[in-house]
């Protein structure tokens, strides 16, 4: 179970890296605007928020799953 959590964390970090780095990033690196705000700015703000939500879920959701599993075994 501990390893499982470790794997989840590492997967999450890779996903976040992808979100903020080279290939996907260039999609939004354009002079397009939503309202008056550049799309790149909006993309960064939104994906940062998404990252925060993922972090909250991964840290707070069912932290004691491990113990429950043990009980069921």
């Amino acid at each position: 179970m501990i390893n499982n959590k470790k794997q989840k964390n590492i997967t999450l970090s890779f996903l976040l890296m992808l979100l903020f780095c080279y290939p996907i990033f260039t999609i939004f690196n354009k002079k397009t605007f939503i309202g008056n705000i550049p799309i790149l700015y909006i993309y960064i703000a939104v994906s940062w928020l998404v990252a925060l939500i993922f972090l909250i879920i991964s840290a707070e959701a069912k932290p004691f799953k491990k113990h429950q599993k043990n009980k069921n075994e």
Partner: protein
Amino acid sequence: MSKAIIVVSSLLYLLLLFCIAYYAEYKQKQGKSIINNAYVYALSLGVFCTAWTYYGSVGRATTNGIGFLAIYIGPTIMASLFFPVLRKIIRITKAQRINSIADFISTRYGKNATVASVVSIFCVIGVLPYIALQLKAITISFDILTNNMATSHNLLSDTTLYFTIFLAIFIIIFGTRSVDATEKHEGLVAAVAFESIIKLIAFLVAGVFVTCGIFNGFNDIFFKASHIDEFTKLFTMEGENANAGWFASILLSMVAVMFLPRQFQVGVIENVKEEHLKKAVWLFPLYLFVINIFVIPIAFGGKIIFQNMSVDADTYVLALPLHFNKPLLSMMVFIGGFSAATSMIIVETIALSTMVSNNLVMPIIFSQNKFKNTIDKSIQDTILYIRRFSILFILILAYIYDQFVAHYFSLVSIGLISFTGVAQFAPAIIGGIYWKGATQKGALASIIVGFAIWFYTLIIPSIAHAHIISDSILNNGPFEIFWLKPQALFGLEGFDSITHALFWSMFFNLSAYILFSIYSKPNPQEVYQAEVFVDIDIYQNPEKSNIWRGTAYMPDLYSLLENFLGKERSKNLIQNYAHRHKISIDMHAKADPRIVSFSEKILAGVIGSSSARIMVSSVTKEEELSLNEVFKILHESQQMIELNKELRKKSIELTKATDLLKEANLQLTTMDELKDEFLYTVTHEIRTPLTSIRSLAEIVHENPNLEEAERNKFLGAVVKESERLSHLITKVLNLEKYESGKQKLNLTSFNFIELVNDLYSSYELIAKDKKIKLSLQKPNSMLLLHADKDLLQQVLVNLLSNAIKFTPEDKTIQIVVSDMQTEIQVSIIDAGKGIALELHELIFDKFFQAKNQTIKKPEGTGLGLAICKRIVEMHNGKIWVESEVEKGARFTFTIPNFEA
């Protein structure tokens, strides 16, 4: 604004910090630590946001657009790795009583003093300018607020000097309470967490003022900005290598958020419980997100307002409220920036002073023989004074740097240069906790080579830009060697200086680390430490795998500890430890090896692991262990630990098995009891007819002169009783067959109505004999059923015979057959004396009669209904009774009709 007001307010703010720190320590003494709290921990990590964030981000945003955010997105990504990486570092630190990042690296690589001092020196070089930057931020913001544009400062009239002195006093008071550097600095951490709140609020208020007070929201600012040509290039990231720069900044900040000395201090050393990480994982990135929301609006807003004025973009946060004549708001913003700067200075100074005193000053002092083997009560004071002087030394150095060097450099770059410097530790640390093969020489090479490249590619150009050395080196390379140009090393061009430096320094750093590790042999101590660091989860309790071998005497150890910790404390520590591990201590005999290791660890908390090792070995005679012996000990202890784990697992399994067995045993006992009761009933039932057969036979046997008619009557009775007996035995056998599952269903398709009709006609006669009326209610069509015909017939026979048995004369028995589509339902309704409600379930129980001797029981063997129940259930049907006493009974059973 009046200078006096600002100075007084700042001093008041510092006093407030004093109060908070004092309160925190007061609470701690009462046992109610306020830093033992996940939120305080997460806030203290906010020390990542310095004056560089507070003022500098805005400045960077005006020239690079959103690129500055990489510094805060990196930590957000890193937060997802806090659990695997930072938690492991925290565990190691606690288990090994490590007190700084230099101590961490040196402890991993064999508690080597050289490693510790090299890391300490590089930390000071890398971070000192960063502290100076904070002082500079205070100076500049102060000047702007007082509108003091005088360029020349008189040293004595320089307020920054006084702030620095004040801060030094603060840090000395709350930072050097105890000689044990692993003890938490409650007061300082509380103050830093408080400052995180202040700077956040101040910046947000300024942001709201600019966005909503001066402009009409985000859209308005961007709308106005889009009309200015200069801005349009900020809306995207431009340049062919912009992505590389962005990526490099993310990587740098990911590393910096853990390994900057101040981050290591608050994140690892001051961590009270590793569970606090759980909140910090999302709260800290959230903090970074919130504090950055208004950076772009302030940057763009400032640029729009100050278009044609010469206002430094780094100061827009402060300049905007001043420009719009909001003195109170300006004051608030100033205090926010002040708090960002001071919190960084406090933590960084503490971290650096621990390193400088433990790894640079103390080894020199303790290598002099006068401290060895003597009881010197002043050693504790000496250590504290060394720490205090280190703090002063660092702050003075930072002040001098700020006053005389910093103005040559641009502010903005200092932060990133520091980040890149600290990143040089990353391979040695990360490799150290995951790769057992990494050696001391590898780590030393990696750090030295990395720093050399860092110095060459970032510091030399800064110095050249400042015209301290000729800048021809930048254009033509040293000695005209073109491919050695510091900013285009080996001809790598087109990247910004940070990306360029990061690439080359990491390239050589990693290469040196791996190559030297592979081609050098570790000493036994290194092998042991590598094992403990990488497998910290196994060696959480390192005393178990103690590798110290040699001779040591208790009095020597005691006097050593007393020198550093005082008599009382060292006695307590040793005795508690001995008690916990069941070691008996004889004050005048040889010391247990575990006590020696423990003493070394305690000392490590005070003077660092490398010095502690030297001190302990000075009072003991240690036997050199060969590599093989270390491996053997490690292997054994690992086996022990695994064996323990295995044992624990097995014992849990055993407990579970025992529980199951107990349950099964209980079931068996009840079943056994039931079986006894059943046997009792059956034999009882068999004995009744047997007795009458025997007495009848005896009568006939003993009276040969009986009359023919009489004799026949008796013999007839014998036959009848025998029939009853064999009938009973058949029933018992049948029941046994059904119960054990030996009886297989012989399924055939047949017309159920036909079966009922047959039975009805045969039982009509029997009923007539007893003067009972029989009525049948059935559907008109045929009812095809797929079931065991013989068994179903038996059910009907049993129920009907029961009904006839219990129904008095002149009453009616009703048989009702109904087709319920998915099943057929048969009810047999008698007019007997009825069955009490509490018996409705029990009567279907084969043990019913035996178990309920006290209850008034109906006549019969008590097996008929049990057999019916079994048969119906074998067909997946149900059987039940509805009845009240004196009102007859209605027995109903259903058989699913799968063919329907």
